[in-house]
């Protein structure tokens, strides 16, 4: 792992920024004004892990950070090894310097009922609606309303703080995957078109504003494989086009480079030389051919990895590389990963 070093993307000049009152110095490309960090990526690329590591990084130096999940998977509870998160803010972990990471799992049905209560003071009839299947209707299948409710709830958490009432310095959103992210973030706009009047429409305006402001950045998590890279490049393009600010590209599980250029002599590496070296190491020399073949195949993968990394160059945002950690990943590993988001001082 140490061999990986602290990889900062090709575009990132390592800026040692002066922290805003207690905010840790983050890797360049994570804008200082950002209060809402949206983390997306192809499914299986390590979105939730990345979001959690980022939350811990942001919490350093005494910050309070809320991490929010919206897909009801209880992935945060598993990751932080705590009981299932209810629809309420719960302590997840402490961070160095008195910081804290708090978790929230937003349930769209409950969020909807919240709205009914907030806007109409009608929790009881909301329950009747729930029994009728109306809430299911609204939150599951009505056009993007589910996404509106979720982003609306996130916005509430971000802005409460600005009114000086609530407790979070930053909010990290473990968002839906790249394939759905534009739709998710634009749902508010869609609804503003569909529901042309009414409180949901008014609510939408505020969410659209926040998501398109400099207070919000979207980070893209990827693996150095064909599909995830393609999706990342596509999503970056779409998001930029849609007026969303990009943060960093986070590359997960990149395999370290052990083989030096030229060492394999284009696949004709000398078995005799390798055998000599293995003997010195006290390793069974019968394994020579297999180890040579394995090294050649490893390098073939590394070439693919490099080519995919090059394709990411099309997106001019900083890159952060996280090492692969042996599962299961827990709070200790997350804390280790959070180092990669912070600049050493």
């Amino acid at each position, binding site marked *: 792992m140490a061999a990986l070093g602290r990889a900062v993307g090709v575009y990132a000049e390592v800026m040692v920024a002066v922290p805003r009152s207690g905010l840790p110095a983050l890797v360049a490309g994570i804008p200082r004004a950002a209060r809402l960090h949206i983390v997306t990526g192809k499914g299986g690329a390590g979105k939730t892990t990345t979001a959690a590591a980022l939350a811990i990084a942001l919490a350093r130096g005494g910050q309070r950070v809320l991490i929010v999940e919206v897909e009801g998977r209880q992935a945060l509870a598993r990751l932080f090894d705590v009981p299932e998160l209810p629809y309420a803010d719960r302590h997840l972990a402490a961070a160095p310097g008195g910081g804290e990471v708090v978790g929230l799992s937003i349930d769209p049905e409950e969020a909807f009922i919240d709205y009914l209560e907030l806007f109409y003071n009608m929790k009881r009839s909301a329950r009747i609606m729930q029994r009728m*299947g109306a809430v299911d209707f609204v939150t599951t*299948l009505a056009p993007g309303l589910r996404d509106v409710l979720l982003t609306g709830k996130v916005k509430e958490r971000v802005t409460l703080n600005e009114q000086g009432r609530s407790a979070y310095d930053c909010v990290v959103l473990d968002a839906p995957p790249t394939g759905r992210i534009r739709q998710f973030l634009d749902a508010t706009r*869609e609804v503003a078109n569909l529901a042309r009047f009414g409180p949901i429409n008014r609510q939408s305006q505020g969410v659209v504003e926040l998501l398109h402001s400099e207070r919000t950045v979207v980070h893209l998590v990827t693996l150095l494989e064909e599909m*995830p890279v393609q999706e990342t490049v596509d999503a970056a393009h779409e998001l930029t086009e849609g007026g969303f600010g990009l943060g960093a590209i986070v590359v997960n599980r990149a395999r370290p480079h052990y*083989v*030096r250029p030229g060492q394999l002599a284009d696949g004709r590496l000398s078995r005799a030389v390798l055998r000599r070296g293995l003997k010195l190491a006290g*390793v069974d020399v019968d394994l020579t051919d297999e180890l*040579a073949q394995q090294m050649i195949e490893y390098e*073939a993968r590394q070439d693919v990895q490099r080519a995919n990394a090059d394709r990411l160059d099309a997106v001019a945002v900083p890159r952060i590389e996280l090492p692969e950690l042996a599962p299961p990943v827990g709070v200790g590993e997350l804390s280790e990963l959070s180092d990669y988001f912070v600049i050493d001082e």
Partner: protein
Amino acid sequence: MTAPRRRLAALDVDRLIGDPATRIIVTCGSGGVGKTTTAAALALRAAESGRRTVVLTIDPARRLAQSMGLTELDNTPREVEGVADGRLFAMMLDMKRTFDEVVAAHSTPERADQIFANPFYQALSSSFAGTQEYMAMEKLSQLAEPPPGNPEWDLIVVDTPPSRSALDFLDAPQRLGRFLDGRFIRLLAAPAKAGGKAYVKVLSASFGLMSKAVTKILGGELLRDVSAFVASLEAMFGGFRERAEHTYRLLKTPGTAFIVVASPEPDALREASYFVERLVGEQMPLAGLVVNRLHRPAGGDRLSARRAEAAADKLGDRASSDAVDLAEAALRVHAEIAEAGENDARMVRGFAAAHPDVALIAVPALPTDVHDLTGLRLIGELLAAS
């Protein structure tokens, strides 16, 4: 590496795809585990064993799609070139077009145009969570029961949409069906049919309050769009729920085989577990689990990650030479792969222990991505060899 396979019932792929009774194979699992590749490889192998096969893909990697001659969404099976001794057809699902076709097939042109123009329909058909799953099922149903005059397929291989959760594939169609066919939406549709005013009178107090709330929240326009949409739909076909249930029943018939796909990672295997339990619980025909991308270190378990690492460290302390440096690199590479292999094996063992009756295939990781028929053929061989 081989430890997990010892105790397991192996999944005999060639018997499954070669059996004329197998009509539908569904590959399912969470995103990024190689579902599409597995589906394509099975389809190619079946085709080359002489069965007239079609593979329905949802969202394939660009180069994989190109390798099968798929360049755009076009909703019609196209014959794949380069198949030896057999016929393979492939298609990519176009969700919106499938929905449009369903509407067009069941209404007059005039009515269909009305529906197409409805903003609610536009949103529903192009962007709803659940619509993709529903349309994948719809398309499967069309392929399984071709219109008169069209030849039947020997085998249909279906890839499922990359869902948030593998279970969405089973649930979404019924949910959409329930929604479009449900009590609530009928209530919403009522004003369009009853002319508005009468509707309010009929309702009880709480109903009135509720509909007022819905109107307030969603805005009156949306409600009117929904009402118009549902009213025009209702007249023309026998209920969405019924169609969804029909496909669901089709999936339960013995001619169907579900293959759950996973990678040796905790999240993917957890999803696979949920899916397996669900399939078993609903008496759906589960064929087995494919675990893709297992790391196979050189020499099997003859050199452990720990010993390789220690040997590499030992070389690191020596004066540099070609032999020392090359062997150190080889040992570091080995330690990396052997450790990954040990983790994989632990993951698979965990799954096997929890599901002792599920047949399993472990497919080793290939050095490069699969993006041509040769690669798919190789995957097919690996699937059959386990």
